[in-house]
């Protein structure tokens, strides 16, 4: 069964068509890169998938639930890490973990065990009762990702998760993504970094609300006759009408 299926999904704001009849299918455990310039419609498309926006037309399922009618069910089975920072600076490491666990209704006893495990895995046990604001950004980012998948979602949506993070930490972050995918979690990730696009199983590139290309990075590079994803992206983005 496909983890995400989308058919002619469209979102209009007045006269403006932000997302224009997009189609794709994503398999369970796949790492799917969702690329596009600013304003191409990535965020709008993603918001429809996570149940924050209702589509104007088109159909789709996420984790087997209908995006038009079952957004409450969808929310229970996904994790989400927003582009802006999704943890609270004036809560401690432990409180942040427990808060998000509570938000997804993980029972108290189980949550207590999970919290300790998670902190141990991330090497944050010594910082359990420290306020988050003192932590380096990279650590916060890794914590935010771990928190987003602690309720064992079927799919995790990552909206530009590595913005502003140094290359070493980004590398570590991607190792965590691979680990999650190996456990069977589908990863839907948007990014600005073209080297990150290479790490994905498949990549889609949105231009002007439409999906202009969708395939494995290797096939795309061959098709567009360039050596890296950056080249693919540039060739596609050149034709974009919407610019910022």
């Amino acid at each position, binding site marked *: 069964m496909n983890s995400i299926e989308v058919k002619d999904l469209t979102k209009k704001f007045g006269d403006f068509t932000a997302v224009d009849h997009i189609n794709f299918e994503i398999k369970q455990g796949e790492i799917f890169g969702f690329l596009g310039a600013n304003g191409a419609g990535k965020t709008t498309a993603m918001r429809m998938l996570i149940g924050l926006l209702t589509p104007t037309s088109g159909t789709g399922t996420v984790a087997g639930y209908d995006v038009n009618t079952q957004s409450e069910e969808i*929310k229970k089975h996904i994790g989400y890490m927003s582009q802006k920072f999704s943890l609270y600076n*004036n809560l401690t490491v432990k*409180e942040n973990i427990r808060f998000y666990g509570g938000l997804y209704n993980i029972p108290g006893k189980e949550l207590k065990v999970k919290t300790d495990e998670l902190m141990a895995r991330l090497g944050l046990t010594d910082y359990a009762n420290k306020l988050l604001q003192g932590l380096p950004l990279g650590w916060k980012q890794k914590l935010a990702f771990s928190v987003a998948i602690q309720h064992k979602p079927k799919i995790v949506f990552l909206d530009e998760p590595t913005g502003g993070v140094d290359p070493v930490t980004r590398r570590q972050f991607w190792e965590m993504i691979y680990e999650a995918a190996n456990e069977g979690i589908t990863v839907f990730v948007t990014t600005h970094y073209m080297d990150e696009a290479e790490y994905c199983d498949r990549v889609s590139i949105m231009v002007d609300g439409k999906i202009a290309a969708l395939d494995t990075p290797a096939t795309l590079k061959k098709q567009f006759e360039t050596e890296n994803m950056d080249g693919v992206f540039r060739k596609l983005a050149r034709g974009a009408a919407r610019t910022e």
Partner: protein
Amino acid sequence: MKSSFIAMVIKEFKHVIRDGRSLFFLLAQPVMMILLFGFALSNEVKESKVIIVDHAHDLASKGLIQRIDQNRYFHVIGSLSNESEAKEIFEQGRASLIIVFPENFSDDLKHQYKSSVQLIADAHDPNTAAIITTYASAVFRDFQNEQLGLLKMPYEIKVETRMLYNPQLISAYNFVPGVMTLILMILGAMMTSVAIVREKELGTMEVLLASPMHPLQIVLSKAIPYLVLAFITVIIILVLSVFVLHVPIRGSLLLLLAESLLFISTTLALGLLISTITEQQQVAMFISLVGLMLPSLIFSGFMFPIENMPLVLQIISNVIPTKWYYNIVRAIMVKGLGFMSIWKETVILLGMTLVLLTVAIKKFKVHLS
């Protein structure tokens, strides 16, 4: 109750407790306001400085001057030979009242049964000027009545005044309900709206909305801590006014607390509404302070009597929640009335709360799609 709801409420409490600004706003501000109004800001006039211009220098004028100096509202600080210096005295702020006795003051009284005294007041503050000239006139009236004991007037009307509920005209009876109303209004609306808008600004609101928690629950769970804290504020204000300012609660304390809870809900609903139409904390704060503070102050009836306003403003005052709560608090605290005399106000507040809440929820949903 779901654990997600509880987790949200706990989280919100932690935010408030760790944010020094919010905590200060919640706890220190009411204390400061009550103490300020209680001890510093008062429209009672005490120890006004008086300068005497005595052209008479006779028995009657001297007696009166002594009488004025002994009065607790006045303090005679000196005398002048001529009232022409009045302007200069007021400009320098040396005194707020000048009393001029004409020549032959005693003689005129004795022989013509009639004399006059001139009061010159510094009316750049009209309220104070009105109050002190009234007080001074009262001193002269007392003197006159004593003299009348010797002579009989052909007829007289004796006016006896009784000030009900507040015989000593203590201003705290007026400002405690007023300050309570204002603080709750600002606190409830501002704290809630800022708390919600802050999450929008941080981007955490989106994460919360993508969670299984229902949007309504998210918003309500954010309002609950402020409900509790505003309630604590009510208790702080009441304790201070009873034990420090000696303003009694004549009616039922339980009723007062229940009505306060209702008013707090009104302000929280207003805060929710503000949060749905703004994206920035600063804007939310601005709307709460400027958009709510002024109408609340003007139309509560706390500082300016609504009966004296033009009809249009009187009509407008009806949609301002503070007016109704202020009436309720005064009715319970000062007059000692029961629910039967404030049911109308209660129904109005309840109605306002429901309307505000409905509009806020509608707007919130529209915002989502």
